[in-house]
């Protein structure tokens, strides 16, 4: 089945968003704040350091 253009656009955007979200979660899990953003509230791991 060939997806029509508009559906393909939505699907591409959704997949891109999920990939970027997972990458962001990975970055957050490493607990390495990006310079320029307000620091997140101290997590249990960072507070223990």
């Amino acid at each position, binding site marked *: 089945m060939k997806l029509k253009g508009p559906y393909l656009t939505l699907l591409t955007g959704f997949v891109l968003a999920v990939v970027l979200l997972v990458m962001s979660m990975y970055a957050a899990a490493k607990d*390495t704040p990006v310079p320029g953003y307000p620091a997140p509230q101290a997590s249990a791991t960072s507070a223990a350091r």
Partner: protein
Amino acid sequence: MTSEPATRASDGRTFSLLLVPLAAGCAVSLTLGIYGRLHRPSGIAVNVAGFSSPQTVKVWLASAAVLFALVQITSAGVMYGKIPGIKAPPWIGRLHRWSGRTAFLLTIPVVVQCLYALGFSTFSTRTLAHSLLGCFFYGAFTAKMLVLPKRDLPDWVLRTMGGLVFSALVGVWLTSSFWFFTTFGVKL
């Protein structure tokens, strides 16, 4: 006075054809808003190399998206014969579609950073307007994409949705990138 072609849907049928796209658009807007509100902002998100900060990445990507959106709305004007003196070239439809797709895809890294790192912000009128317009933009865009394949809808539906999507994107840009440029200056 022109009348709608006979193949166009009646008012009742127009409403039923619009029901699913509008419901899906509302669902997308609400989902983004609720996620942004409930999710604890991480302050962390993926970045794009070559920029001085995540904010500058976002303001430039959003500005590029608005630029492509301007191309799209101008090409729509040409296609519908609303720009006097310009005859629509054969490639205008392709330009219209690809400028829209590019604009939309450029906003994706921005919204992921916004929602994941910062969340739905209400601490000032600007951030509240930005958050609301951002959620509205993706809902309106989703509805527009779902309406596009429905060829028997009246022309005003697509034109209205296109106008709403464009206005929402410009509103999002004004409350973020434009604010950033006028507050901190233009920098990479």
